């Protein structure tokens, strides 16, 4: 059992959680993820690490509840215990393997969309700790959904953009990136994390500017150790498992359309499960189609 040292709502639909997991905290690096399971009946939920403290043995997660399992997770409080917490999983970010000299040769831009801003943070922090200042674009629908602004500002130059213009710049992250380039910023290394559709369009934009771009994929997963193949993606025409080969890949080579289709596989079941969890067994099965009355 893994103790929750802090849990709560961060902003809008985004939640945070600080968990005691010494083995994970000892060895994790930016870009890696953990799998969390709540209760005997729970699903295994992959979540990218937001921050870690080796001395205190803690891992911080920021996530957005979207189904039954993540909603159950969000209902846990400080002091509660998580049944299973395993990691670190996946390959660390490429930039963690670079020497300080190599890091200094690059001009980094990070682009975080929505809750995808969270996994950007440890990477920007890593660069900061290695003496490299990076630019970070935080994109959100609206002002209230901007997360981690202050902490990000402590480690990088931050540009905020909102879809509705309620805070920072107005528009999508792709517009923000193009504006920054037009304003004279130049980049040769981009890391983009957020919804699949946002990563797809960011990659189209960075391709135009020939900026190599890393994306973090979050497909459906079960074990997270390479056993099941549920998370398989096509990257540069080859099958890759996000859990062991990734989760970060060359965004210009990822088949996003396929990845987006594969992500919808359990959508109906997830939706039904979520309704049943939220509303109880309201469906009487009278339609004669779904078998709910049997």
């Amino acid at each position: 059992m893994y103790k929750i040292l802090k849990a709560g709502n961060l902003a809008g639909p985004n939640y945070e959680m600080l968990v005691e997991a010494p083995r994970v905290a000892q060895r994790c690096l930016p870009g890696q993820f953990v799998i969390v399971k709540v209760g005997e009946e729970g699903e295994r939920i992959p979540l990218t690490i937001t921050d870690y403290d080796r001395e205190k043995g803690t891992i911080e997660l920021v996530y957005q509840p979207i189904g039954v399992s993540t909603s159950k997770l969000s209902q846990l409080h400080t002091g509660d215990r998580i049944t299973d917490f395993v990691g670190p999983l996946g390959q660390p970010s490429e930039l963690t393997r670079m020497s300080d000299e190599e890091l200094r040769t690059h001009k980094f831009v990070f682009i975080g969309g929505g809750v995808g801003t969270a996994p950007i943070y440890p990477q920007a922090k890593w660069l900061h700790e290695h003496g490299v200042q990076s630019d970070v674009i935080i994109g959100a629908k609206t002002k209230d959904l901007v997360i981690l602004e202050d902490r990000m500002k402590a480690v990088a130059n931050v540009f905020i953009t909102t879809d509705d213009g309620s805070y920072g710049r107005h528009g999508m992250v792709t517009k923000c990136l193009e504006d920054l380039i037009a304003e004279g910023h130049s980049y040769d290394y981009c890391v983009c994390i957020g919804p699949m559709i946002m990563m797809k369009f960011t990659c189209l934009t960075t391709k135009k500017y020939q900026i190599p771009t890393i994306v973090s994929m979050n497909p459906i997963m079960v074990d997270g150790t390479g056993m099941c193949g549920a998370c398989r993606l096509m990257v540069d025409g080859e099958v890759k498992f996000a859990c062991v080969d990734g989760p970060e890949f060359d965004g210009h080579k990822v088949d996003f359309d396929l990845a987006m289709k594969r992500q919808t596989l359990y959508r109906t079941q997830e939706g039904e499960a979520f309704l049943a969890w939220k509303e109880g067994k309201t469906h009487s099965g009278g339609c004669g189609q779904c078998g709910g009355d049997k």
Partner: protein
Amino acid sequence: MAEIRGLKRVPVREQDPKVRAANFEEVCLGYDEDEAVAEAERCLHCKNPKCVAGCPVSIDIPGFIAALKDRKFEEAYNVISRSSSLPAVCGRVCPQETQCEGKCIRGIKGDAVSIGKLERFVADWAKAHDKHMQCYRGRTGHKVAVIGSGPSGLTCAGDLAKQGYDVTIFEALHRAGGVLVYGIPEFRLPKDRVVAREVENVQCLGVKLETNVIIGRSVTIEDLLTKEGFDAVYIGSGAGLPMFMNIPGEQAKGVFSANEFLTRNNLMKAYRDDYDTPIACGKKVVVVGGGNVAMDAARTALRLGAEVHVVYRRSEAELPARKEEVHHAKEEGIQFDLLTNPVEILADENDNVRGIRVIHMKLGEPDASGRRRPVPVEGSEYEIACDTVIMALGTRPNPLISSTTNGLEVNRKACIVADEGGATSLPGVFAGGDAVTGAATVILAMGAGKTAAKSIDAYIRSKYGES
């Protein structure tokens, strides 16, 4: 009558095929005391028992059967326990027809003694009467780490604990048992009643179990040997990486590895309403492959309500699955499309599977495995309509450990290189089971765990100058 009884084995009670096709309860119900004693009486007690030679862990088979005959059930359990840490599992999943029973003299004329069912009876009797395995030696104070809680790791850990070692098993998943929990379904190997009980048995010997630790990620082998004070490590991490065919359409929605399908159903219990993990099993399922895993996937899909076809490229004689599994699958209504091989998976406009295009095969010259190589019959392609395809083509070892352990030698198939005693290229590091051989059987993995336990004992004794 006596003669017939001598030739035929005592039949074992099973759930009716029609009933069991719709539930996940265990298919085989096992012998009761009288049936077990009657079957035990068929044993001829050969002076040179071939059955023992056929057993990878060398159980004293005539010995335990002799005790059974005299209704000394506890003694029978103690005899088996001396050689095997997992009798309730082996009695259920071993391919006895090619091992102990395959060598039984009774089998030359008539049925071999039903050794597997007798072993299972003894293990189940011990559970019902709360009997546990016993330790032989006092604490040695030396620590051994075992990676993986599958059959190989449990056996190695159990044997070492019996020798007095301080053993910790590290398991990557949230539940112990390895392939016994994620791979083999409930209807063949009950999880709580049998697997959890065998794990508890090993824990009763003093073995510690740490779940949710991925060696290579959460901690490395080097750290175990240096920072955590282990004297030796046994790698029993299995072969968990699924293979695909690399044919067009394999990324469509509705194509699963058998590992995914079975893990969702067995480990995550997706077949139960009270568990959160979903499973997408359509109405018509094609399982590709002919091994035990293919049978398990097919029979699971059937129980989830699907019509199931097994597509296998060779003929029935070459099916690698246990005979009993094939027999049970047929009884339950699984259809076998033999000498048939997929060439393409077909998807609709939303990328959902709508069928599979297959080609007829014929058997040509024998290949390296000694089996006749299947070759396609030109122009014989046809389509099978289906909404789900499950690939059960075998598995390879996971490179997580080998890629994070400097100096650990692996071969071209990513299998860890180990000698007959289980020693690897690194001092103090031993390996066995599927991680070394590639996907094989539970009992062979147990045999390797047993051998390695002996080697580890010898290694530690010589390291500390003990005799």
